[in-house]
Structures are given as C-alpha cells and as structure tokens.
C-alpha cells in the first residue's frame, strides 16, 4: 500500500514537473527541422522566421506577466510609503524625512530600472542563441555531427531560463521601508536597505552574466566547426 502511494505521489510530482518544463522551454529550430525529411532554403527560412516570432511572443508574454504584477505592487508600495511617512513624522525632522522618503522611493524605482535592463539582455541573448542554433542546424543538414554544439546550446538555454526566473523574482520584489531605530542611526538604518538592494541585484547580475557566458560558449563551440559560416541549407526542392 505504501509503495503504491509513494509511486503515485512521485508520478504526480513528475507530471507537474514535466508540465512546468514544457511551458518554460523556448521553441527550438534544430528539433523542428529534424522532424522534416527534406527541406529547401525557403522552408528553412520560413521555419526560422516562425521560431523567431514564437521567441518574441514568449518574451512579450513574460514581460506582460511582470508588468501586471508591478501594477498590483504599485498600490502596495504606495501604502507602505504612507505608513512609513507617518512613522517618520514622529521621529525625525522634516528635511531628513523628505530625504529618507525619497531614498525609499528610489530603491523600488531602481529595482525596476535595473531588472528591466537585465530582461533586455536576456531577450537579446535568446535571440543570439537562436542564430547560433540556426547555423548549427545548417551544419547538421550538411552532414556534420553537431552533438557537442547542441549540448552547449542546451546549457545556454537552461542558463537563460534560470536567469530569467531570477530576474522575475527580483522584479516582483517589494522593498519594505527601513526600520528606523533613532535619528543618530538614520544613515545606517537606511543604508541597510540600500545594501540589500545592491546585494540582490548583484546576485541576479551574476546569473545574467552566467547566461551571457553560456551563450558565448555556444558560439565558441560552433566556431570549432571548420568553415561553418560558409555552410548553407543543401539544395533540395520544397516538400510537397
């Protein structure tokens, strides 16, 4: 009985995992072309254009999800700011109060600006990776073994997905107002919040840089194929 329950529970988790994975992976040109027995240059370009369109669509949907979440967050941040203002009024002078409020506002705004920048980078990396995959597919169509390049491309896709999820989590983060212990400790207390954002962004930046390096490695692996830039889709008639 216990074995059956364990099996079923594992099955449920694996199924959910498969579902999540199937929705998070980017469309792949290599996989698509492999399903076609023969392909003309025109068909190759059409399929590539379609993959590019799907990648872009996926990127837009991802940004829309974040945008919607941010819209919801705006009201929450505003409420936190109001509460913070009330708390500050009783403890510090007006000039310092204005500065602290401005810093708090900038913390959340800066998070949005930098995470947007990271998203731009990841979108560009994904498009570059599609180009690497396109050239790899051409090599395969010319009978070249691309197993190694394909493995590095897969790693790069994974690195981009990991970084993308990290950027999303960071973009959807709301920074709580700092805990003010005393007017003398004001700089220290507010500084902690600044440091927190800095550390969080550094951690995300590390993942985005790893994704960039993974794409670079894919480009290096592709360049190992002799005269790869000269390879084109072999001449065949369009499939009927």
């Amino acid at each position, binding site marked *: *009985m216990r074995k*059956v*329950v364990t099996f*079923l*529970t594992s*099955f*449920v988790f694996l*199924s*959910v995992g498969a*579902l999540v994975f*199937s*929705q998070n992976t980017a469309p792949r040109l290599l*996989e*698509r072309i492999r*399903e*076609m027995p023969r392909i*003309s240059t*025109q*068909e190759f*370009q*059409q*399929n*590539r*254009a*379609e993959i*590019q369109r*799907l990648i872009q669509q996926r990127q837009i949907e991802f940004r829309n999800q974040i945008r919607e979440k941010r819209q919801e967050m705006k009201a929450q941040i505003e409420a936190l700011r109001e509460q913070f203002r009330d708390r500050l009024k009783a403890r510090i002078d007006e000039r*310092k109060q204005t500065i602290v409020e*401005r*810093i708090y506002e*900038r*913390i959340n705004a*800066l998070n949005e*600006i*930098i995470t947007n*920048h990271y998203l731009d980078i990841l979108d560009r*990396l994904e*498009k*570059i990776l599609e*180009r*690497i995959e*396109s*050239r790899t597919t*051409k090599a395969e169509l010319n009978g070249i073994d691309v197993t190694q390049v394909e493995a590095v491309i897969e790693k790069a896709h994974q690195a981009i997905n990991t970084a993308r999820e990290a950027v999303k989590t960071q973009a959807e983060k709301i920074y709580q107002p700092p805990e003010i212990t005393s007017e003398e400790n004001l*700089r220290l207390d*507010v500084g902690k919040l*600044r440091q927190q954002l800095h550390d969080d*962004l*550094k951690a995300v*930046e590390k993942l*985005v*840089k790893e994704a*960039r390096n993974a*794409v670079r490695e894919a*480009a290096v692996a*592709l360049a190992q194929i002799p005269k*790869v*830039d000269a390879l084109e889709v072999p001449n065949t008639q*369009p*499939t009927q």
Partner: protein
Amino acid sequence: MEQKSEIKTSYIFLIILGLIALAILVGVLYSWEKKREVSIPSVTPEESGEKIAPVEDTVLSVNEDLEKIEFPNLDQAFQEIDQELNSL
C-alpha cells in the same frame, strides 16, 4: 468490521490518487499537444505570404552582437541614493 472499513478507506484513497494522477497526465499530454500545435507547424512557403527577413547567423555576426551587450554599472546606478544617504 473495523478492518473492512479500513480496507474500504484505503481503496477510496487509492482511487482518488489514481484519478488525480490521471487528470495530471491528461493535462500534461494536452498541454504538450497544444504546444506542439503552436510551435511545430510545418510552415511551407505557400502557406505564409509574409516576407522573410532572416537575421544574420554567422559566427562573426553573433560574436559581434555578444560583444555589444553591456551590463549596467551598479555603483553608478546607486550614486544618487548614495549622495542622498551622505546628506543624512
């Protein structure tokens, strides 16, 4: 009597778990099939009339674009906040 009731409960539990697993399996297959429909249509030139504008896919152009990627300078981005902090 009590043992019978226990066996019955175990069976019901098993059936419920089985149904959940089946529902998830159907969901996964449906989602996979839908994804296939969206992402793997064999597009032929006749079906699509749109102009194709392929992006350059040479290693040279790829490397050039990789080099163009710039990361924001975090210390510079924090400069305004740091100035405000120093005025406290």
